[in-house]
């Protein structure tokens, strides 16, 4: 009798894994994600804007020299000094736009207008704005007649990048950045969200299908309904685990082999230094956050650890929610009837996702701790907290609660399932489900 659950699991598993759609999504998804992440850079690389000629009418005489001296101005921009009226300038087809700087720019810094023939660009506007701001500020400072002003300014200029070091009990230190932790946590939460909904609903729809098919009647004459339900949940869960495992291996492989090859050499040197803890902020040519992020992504051990934790919460969360979905699927005749009951599973998942978005503000707030203990929200909220290196006991307690809750939920779900699969016709209410759970 016990091996029956194994037969059910293997049927559920092989039916799904052998599907073309599974193989395609499993292999294509990481590629797609990479493309999505790389897309902005690629677009920037391949789409240089067309040449732009802007006439500058500088009535103050202060801005134009600074604009011409500005090194960060894009190459496609050419500036021409002029004093003609704006209308005449714009009548010329050669000119794409006119920048009109008022004579009284120092006292009225907003007296600047940019006339453009076609759509403006953010980069262009921001560039002009910052140059003019600098000019005005510098001129105003000059009025105070401070000696060696530019030297002083250079000296006091500071570029602050906070490196947070968390010291754990073993005395080892790990450098973390809240921003990176936040994004890593968010990525994992999103993956979990997707999996819980996708695979949870897969359990539900497949039970509804079996019920409508009436194949259930044939199966339950050899298998206890409880075994059938658990077999389906575990079988579908294994598919999810296999998919995550394949993605995990792919990402580890990429971080081990692909990342070092693709990185600019200068960046990889800094990453190596940062890894050894020997990076001096003053020498850094790259944004330290970027260096840290790359060094994290390049650390296979770190990624493997995160994937391991994610898998534990994925399995626990899936088992828990799939039990709810299974009970609902057994009770209804079609997906339309399920929509109302489904909210019992879907709303907590969405609430957890929403909360995870704000967990970065204070990963150790009482709300965050509680939500990461309650099984309805714990998988996702806890996953978004893990990258912040929270106390390990919290993680294990949360996992323990989650798995115990699954056993309890599966027990109730099985009681509903056992009655629900033979109910046809009437759309059940939550009251019906509670009553079924009480049958002997």
């Amino acid at each position, binding site marked *: *009798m016990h091996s029956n659950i194994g037969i*059910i699991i293997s049927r559920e598993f092989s039916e799904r894994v052998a599907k073309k759609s599974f193989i395609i999504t499993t292999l294509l998804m990481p590629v797609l994600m990479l493309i999505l992440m790389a897309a902005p850079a690629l677009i920037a690389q391949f789409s240089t804007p067309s040449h732009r000629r802007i006439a500058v009418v500088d009535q103050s005489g202060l801005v134009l020299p600074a604009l011409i001296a500005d090194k960060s101005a894009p190459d496609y921009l050419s500036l021409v000094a002029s004093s003609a009226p704006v209308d005449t300038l714009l009548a010329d087809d050669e000119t794409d736009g006119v920048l009109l700087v008022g004579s009284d720019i120092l006292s009225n810094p907003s007296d600047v207008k940019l006339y453009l023939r076609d759509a403006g660009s953010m980069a262009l506007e921001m560039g002009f704005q910052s140059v003019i701001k600098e000019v005005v500020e510098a001129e105003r400072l000059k009025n105070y007649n401070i000696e060696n002003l530019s030297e002083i300014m250079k000296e006091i200029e500071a570029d602050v990048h906070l490196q947070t070091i968390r010291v754990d009990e073993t005395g080892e230190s790990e450098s973390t950045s809240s921003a990176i932790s936040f994004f890593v946590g968010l990525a994992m939460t999103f993956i979990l969200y997707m999996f819980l909904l996708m695979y949870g609903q897969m359990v539900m729809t497949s039970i509804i299908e079996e019920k409508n*098919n009436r*194949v259930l*009647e044939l199966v339950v*004459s*050899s298998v*206890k309904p409880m075994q059938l339900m658990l077999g389906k949940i575990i079988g579908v869960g294994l598919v999810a685990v296999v998919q995550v495992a394949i993605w995990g291996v792919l990402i580890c492989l990429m971080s081990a082999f692909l990342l070092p090859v693709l990185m600019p050499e200068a960046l990889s040197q800094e990453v190596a230094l940062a890894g050894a803890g020997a990076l001096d902020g003053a020498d850094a040519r790259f944004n330290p956050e970027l260096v840290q992020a790359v060094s994290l992504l390049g650390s296979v051990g770190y990624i493997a650890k995160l994937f391991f934790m994610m898998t534990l919460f994925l399995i626990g969360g899936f088992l828990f929610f799939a039990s709810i979905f299974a009970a609902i699927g057994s009770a209804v005749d079609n997906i339309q009837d399920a929509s109302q009951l489904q909210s019992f599973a879907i709303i907590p998942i969405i609430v957890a996702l929403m909360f995870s978005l704000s967990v970065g503000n204070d990963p150790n707030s009482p709300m965050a701790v509680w939500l990461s203990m309650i099984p309805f929200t714990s998988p996702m909220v806890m996953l978004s907290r893990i990258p912040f290196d929270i106390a390990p006991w919290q993680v294990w307690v949360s996992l323990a609660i989650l798995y115990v809750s699954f056993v309890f939920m599966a027990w109730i779900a099985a009681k509903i399932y056992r009655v629900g699969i033979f109910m046809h016709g009437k759309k059940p209410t939550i009251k019906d489900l509670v009553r079924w759970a009480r049958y002997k």
Partner: protein
Amino acid sequence: MDIIKAENITKRFTGHTALDNVSVSIREGSIYGLLGPNGAGKTTLIRIINHITAPDSGTLWFGGHRLVAGDVARIGYLPEERGLYKKMRVGEQALFFAKLKGMKTSEATAELKKWFERFGIMGWWNKKVEELSKGMAQKIQFIVTVLHRPRLLIFDEPFSGFDPINAELLKKEILRLRDEGATVIFSTHNMESVEALCDDFTLINRSHNILSGNVAEVRRRMGRDNYRLTFQGDPEALLAALGNNVAAHKLSEPVETSEGVHFNAEFTLHPGVDMRSFIRCANEAVEIVTFDRALPTMNEIFIRAVEAANAGQQSVGD
């Protein structure tokens, strides 16, 4: 020996009682008819025998011991509402069901090949179920039900969806399985097939067992004072001769045959009037062509018993 002995089974759902103190005994090696109107509680009883649901009270014995979960491996159940996994291939699916009943893959494959050859459906092995017609799928379901050579077979409306030729094939297979030692429980509304196949039966109405016994015996008992007579002569003379022996009669229109004009008549005699005096009286009045006991059909018994039970229940209720 009884393979199934259900003692005082009661099963309640919210708002109604599906089975109320029902007891049933089923002889090993017999074909047993489980009859009753829709919603009477037959399917609930079958599910209890299949260990799918548990009774609220009462005991179920299987082959001398209390029914346990492991016993379902020795039971084959073909439900009335039956389906298959549509996307799965026929052979693969049959193997899946066989393994659930505890068969080894090699053993199941060999047995399946035998059955597929006997039914002439070897070509379906690699077809997907969704490509099969309803009748074809029914054959697969039948094979899956009997493959593991169960001691007890339960068929719920097995002939629905079959054309007459395949229904006959199925009937033969059921009888063959019985001859090989299996016990068959047969739930159906088709009373002709009950007369043709069943040894014993029980009639469940509104969750109560209202009539059970041996099919032939019950028919004899219920038709004790009924006789059918075909005769030549004057019907009026016959009725006069029978006088007040007859409680009720039915007379057909005259039938022209090569041997002359025949009348068919059915008589219900008063209790205590014996058959020989009836024949004597009739013989003096008319020329008897055939004389027969008029056994009620199972259909008549079904309707009579259910109506009587409902009337009785109602009068009790009023």
